[in-house]
């Protein structure tokens, strides 16, 4: 697999704030790569650096295995934070400027405007667009000229539920054509539903990098509940095939060893005289994993 984007030991400070801290990761061809992190974790700064608008203090990055420059940027379609266009120009004129910069034909403009459902408003001034329309024009600009890599920074910002669903579908469809997508978001749900790979950022550091499915398919957690919670907890604590155990409200949450399952637990508890009134597998969501990673980082 060839790395489309490779970041090594990237750092950037704004005053006393270390926005990006020795960050390294790689994005491979065809990935839908999620850059996940809370507000202010350095997602936009990182993307700003690799897009050439922010200069890093230290560290390097490369696109397509070559040093960065304006030529490589022409192969990338991107929106960074809010879309930025000339307010006194119409949507289509704004896209023509982008097409001129990218040195591609205007033929593609109608196509991308239709994709984002903005075609019938294309001759209206950008300043008269609603927030959602501005965002959609930004996405249209990023899609222009069929880039090899698509970078979307919080793409569903300001969109209504229908718009959000449309964008997610669009991302998946574009990815099917082999386009590499980098998606920065603080919305776990968004990353979980669309991304194949994820890097979790906190305070500019890489907290976790890996396959989204791998996180989600780890041994599930099991919720157990009983009328006598203390007895249940003690009984489970003595069970040998258990990785971790903790209490959450009126439930005991346990993580089992790989070779054990919920049926074993039920049998074990019954034989120890504990009656269970609730037993269920809890599918781990990225959100729980995310919070867990953040909790670890704060220790």
């Amino acid at each position, binding site marked *: 697999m060839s790395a489309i984007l490779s970041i090594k030991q990237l750092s950037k400070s704004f005053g006393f704030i270390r926005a990006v801290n020795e960050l390294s990761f790689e994005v491979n061809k065809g990935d839908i790569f999620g850059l996940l992190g809370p507000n202010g974790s350095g997602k936009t700064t990182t993307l*700003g650096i690799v*897009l*050439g*608008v*922010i*200069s890093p203090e230290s560290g390097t990055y490369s696109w397509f295995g070559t040093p960065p*420059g*304006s*030529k490589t*940027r*022409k192969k*990338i379609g*991107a929106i*960074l934070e809010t*879309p*930025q*266009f*000339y*307010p*006194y*120009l119409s949507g289509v*004129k704004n896209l*023509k*400027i*982008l097409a*001129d*910069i*990218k*040195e591609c034909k205007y033929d593609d403009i109608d196509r991308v405007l239709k994709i984002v459902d903005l075609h019938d408003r294309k001759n209206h001034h950008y300043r008269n667009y609603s927030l959602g329309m501005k965002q959609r024009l930004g996405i249209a*600009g990023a899609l222009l000229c069929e880039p090899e890599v698509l970078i979307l920074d919080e793409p569903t910002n300001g969109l209504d539920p229908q718009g959000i669903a449309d964008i997610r579908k669009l991302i998946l469809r574009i990815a099917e054509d082999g386009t590499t997508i980098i998606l920065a978001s603080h919305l776990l749900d968004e990353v979980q539903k669309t991304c194949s790979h994820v890097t979790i950022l906190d305070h500019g550091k890489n907290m976790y990098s890996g396959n989204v499915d791998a996180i989600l398919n780890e041994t599930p957690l099991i919720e157990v509940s009983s009328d006598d919670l203390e007895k249940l907890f003690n009984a489970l604590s003595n069970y040998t095939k258990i990785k971790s155990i903790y209490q959450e409200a009126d439930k005991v949450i346990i993580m089992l060893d790989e070779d054990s399952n919920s049926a074993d637990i039920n049998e074990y508890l019954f034989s120890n005289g504990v009656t269970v009134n609730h037993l269920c597998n809890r599918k781990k969501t990225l959100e729980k994993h995310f919070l867990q990673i953040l909790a670890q980082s704060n220790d």
Partner: protein
Amino acid sequence: MIRLLKIELKKILTYRTFWVLTGLYFLSLIIVLGSLQAFLDNIVNSSEVSENIEIPHISLYVFPDIWHNLTYIASSRYSFKVILAIIVIILITNEFSYRTIRQNIITGLSRTEFLFAKLEIIVLLCLGSTLILLVTGLSLGFLNTLGFSIMEISGKMEFLIVYFLELLVYLSFAMFIAIMLRKAGLAIGMLLLYTIMEPIIKLSFPKDFGRFLPLEAMNNLIHLPNTKLMKLMGIEFQEYIAFSDVVAAIVYGFIFVFLSWILLRYRDV
């Protein structure tokens, strides 16, 4: 080069502020140059002069002196060329306030290309102004000169070239201020303040140093025309273009463009 110009022209083609300001600038340029004679006559007639001194009639619109007279007025640092500087400042600071410079660079424009694109617009504005001066000068000259030859018409036309150079350097100065300060209000305020302050700053420099301050160096290209009135009063002004002044102006031009490039290159946008 053509690609950059195409991009820049798209940005301003339907930008009303630009056209209104540029239109008014060209209009006022023509009006002022055209009414210069009437203005001067008015001053001469209304001034209280003792009867025994006969003031000769001074025509500003006679070939070839007209080129010197018109370019001198048009390039005065306190006159309308300030409007042109404000136009340049607005065009550049817009890119920062709309953050479109960011989108331009992300999309694949290099910082150097961004700078050259703006320079191309500046050159166009300078060419436009010079063209207006040429057309106005020819019209007024033909109307006011009796019996002229090609030599007379084209004599002193080098003032037009120097006028173009002066404007180019001046607008590069405006561009540098705009890129440095990024905010229209701040940049325009700074330009005006500096324009007012420079003659005062000049006083604190040794005599030969003061003439190398930027606006002073630009203005030195075209000296006050040496009219018959001045000669009458025994004052002699420089009637030619000094090579050293041209060099000084060109050096300033390069400095402003280079500093702008440094700022663009090393600052985050």
